[in-house]
């Protein structure tokens, strides 16, 4: 089975500061991978590289076997053009911590925008598909509401529908629940969990350790721009090898 | 008896304004202008010395009150003669016949009044804003466009920037502009809307009025014509027609 996501020797620098110092990992089809680690360890940056929201300056990221962001021209890495970038971005679906719904559009239009403008789908068909996904995340009844009329949890569920409706090869979640009121966290986690159970390939950055343990096939622990340890959740959470991970797990709440 | 009072005093007191060239305005602290020169002509007649005159600055609505309260001996301030005013003060003989004329830029597309008139609605005339402004212009140029501006300044700017083909304004002002900008403007050669400017004195003083009238008439038609004509030329840029010998034409 070829992996959906393959990251090889990924390096990323902000000015002087090297934030990713050589990352290697893969995500197989249908696999759910959680990335955990202390604040500032580079989790968000890694995820944003997968979606090309950040450029990276060394290493490769392959999505569905296709190297993204760069191609080789006469042995040189060349940043690909804007249309290509846009197309490659649509191969992954991103869910942000701050939801980032388009505030001037209804929930439905948030979902159909990409379908009609990027996929070029006719509107009736886009609406049908959007309705399907809004239903799946339990937001069909609110399809005509503006984001400002929705709670945080509801907004995040619309954001998930928006991303997944584009049929990405892999869904990326960056702390999808940490901007939510505690009583809203559950509904979003539930939505993610049910997508996972249906076999959606996913990469989650999360601080919800219990959730990461329950839902993931693999957990990746990052430490200062490197992967310090990775493996199945049972092993990582019950028998952490590195002292860093042991310390990290001690301070995290389950 | 004003005449005696003036002679005893040794100085004539003339009420006039300070901000309306070429009639009366201030230049180096001196009141000058055509109205001022009329004062000098009267002083010449009284004392044989044109400098024995004092000008009292008054606003135009103070012209009649100042006469009635004897603050001034005479008002010479571009005063239009009307029957209504003549019921309150005594007017002297007119010393200028004001009217409206058309000023154009030299070398403009239209040579003179006839050309303007022939151009019909193709021309624009700039005029000071006034209720009657449009009607007044249309008496002379029935089809012209009329642009009304808020100040004298803007009218001339309109003409100079060729926003307007002609300016309709008082003949005296027109002449003053032409004189001060020699070679720039031309007179379209048509004037209308005549009215007379005269000095005014307090009523019920026939001897004083007679004296002033005689002095003015002799300045316009008699021995003092030189003085009147020089002033006229200085302020209006042209000499008035010289009196003819023989039959006194003004009596015709």
């Amino acid at each position, binding site marked *: 089975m070829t992996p959906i996501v393959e990251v090889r020797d990924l390096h990323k620098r902000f000015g002087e500061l090297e934030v990713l110092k050589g990352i290697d990992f893969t995500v197989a089809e249908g696999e759910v991978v959680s990335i955990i680690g202390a604040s500032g360890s580079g989790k968000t940056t890694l995820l944003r590289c997968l979606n090309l929201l950040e450029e990276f300056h060394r290493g490769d990221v392959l999505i569905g076997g296709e190297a993204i962001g760069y191609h080789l021209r006469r042995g040189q890495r060349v940043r690909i053009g804007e249309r290509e970038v846009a197309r490659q971005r649509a191969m992954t679906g991103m869910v942000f911590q701050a939801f980032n719904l388009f505030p001037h559009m209804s929930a439905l239009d948030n979902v159909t925008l990409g379908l009609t403008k990027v996929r070029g789908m006719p509107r009736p068909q886009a609406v049908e598909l959007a309705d399907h996904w809004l239903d799946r995340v339990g937001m069909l009844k609110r399809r005509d509401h503006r984001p400002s009329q929705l709670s945080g949890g509801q907004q995040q569920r619309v954001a998930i529908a928006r991303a997944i409706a584009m049929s990405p090869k892999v869904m990326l979640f960056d702390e999808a629940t940490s901007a939510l009121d505690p009583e809203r966290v559950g509904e979003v986690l539930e939505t993610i969990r049910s997508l996972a159970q249906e076999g959606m390939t996913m990469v989650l950055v999360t601080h919800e350790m219990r959730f990461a343990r329950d839902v993931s096939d693999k957990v990746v622990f990052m430490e200062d721009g490197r992967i310090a340890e990775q493996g199945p959740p049972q092993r990582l959470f019950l028998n952490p090898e590195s002292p860093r991970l042991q310390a990290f797990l001690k301070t995290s709440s389950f | 008896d004003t005449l005696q009072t003036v002679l005893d005093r040794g100085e004539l007191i003339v009420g006039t304004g300070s901000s309306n060239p070429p009639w009366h305005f201030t230049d180096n602290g001196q009141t000058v202008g055509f109205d001022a020169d009329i004062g000098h002509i009267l002083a010449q007649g009284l004392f044989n010395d044109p400098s024995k005159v004092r000008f009292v600055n008054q606003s135009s609505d103070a012209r009649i009150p100042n006469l009635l309260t004897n603050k001034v001996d005479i008002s010479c301030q571009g005063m239009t003669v009307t029957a209504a005013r003549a019921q309150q003060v005594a007017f002297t003989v007119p010393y200028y016949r004001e009217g409206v004329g058309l000023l154009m830029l030299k070398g403009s597309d239209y040579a003179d009044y006839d050309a303007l008139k022939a151009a019909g609605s193709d021309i624009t005339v700039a005029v000071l804003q006034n209720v009657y402004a449009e009607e007044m212009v249309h008496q002379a140029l029935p089809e012209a466009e009329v642009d009304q501006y808020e100040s004298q300044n803007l009218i*001339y700017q309109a003409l100079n920037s060729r926003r307007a083909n002609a300016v309709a304004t008082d003949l005296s002002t027109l002449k003053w502009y032409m004189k001060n900008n020699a070679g720039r403007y031309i007179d379209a050669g048509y004037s209308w809307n005549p009215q007379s400017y005269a000095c005014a004195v307090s009523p019920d003083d026939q001897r004083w009025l007679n004296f002033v009238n005689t002095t003015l008439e002799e300045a316009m038609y008699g021995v003092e014509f030189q003085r009147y004509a020089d002033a006229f030329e200085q302020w209006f840029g042209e000499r008035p027609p010289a009196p003819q010998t023989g039959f006194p034409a003004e009596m015709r």
Partner: protein
Amino acid sequence: MDWTYFFNEVVNNRDALLHGTAITFAVSLIAILTGTVLGIVIGIAVTYGNKPLRWPARLYIDIIRGTPVLVLVLATFYVSAAVGLNFNAFQAGALALTLFCASHVGEILRGALQSLSRGQIEAGRAIGLTFDGIFRYILFPQALRYALPTWITAAVEMVKASTLLSVIGVAELLLTTQQIISNNFLNMQFYLLAGVIYFLIDFAIEQVGRFIGRRLDQPTRRTV
């Protein structure tokens, strides 16, 4: 274009231009100073006044701000004469600009005062200050800081609005320029010159405002 003629004319008319600029300064300064004092009173009345104080102040602000400045200038000039006030053009113009400035300052101050948190008023009360003291020591000094940059923008507006006095015959910079133009017909050059002078004045004021705005440590806004 004959630039030597233009420069000669500038030199010939330098006294008039300076005088016009001085009048522009004078009338703007009068309007800003007196208008600010009046505006502070109005701003306080609108923000903290009881009904009989607040309403007239609000009405004043809305009426003056709803009227074009040119109309204000003309109305002040003609109406003051009609009701027997013997103002000359300069006085009428200065009055009109003052009224205009006061409405601006009133509105600016209202905005500034209302942006201050209620909690500070309560804290002042809690230590036993009367409203008088709270206003003097707590609200007003802060409102001044907030309002200063906008107030300086208002000063620029006053200088710009002073050009409208040319219409009623105040020989400020613009009318002076027009008078010069009526003698030498250099319309474009002299309007350009006037524009440059106005720009320099306004730009200078604006920069001073920026400078002060940066220097003042802005109190952090809180909405508790």
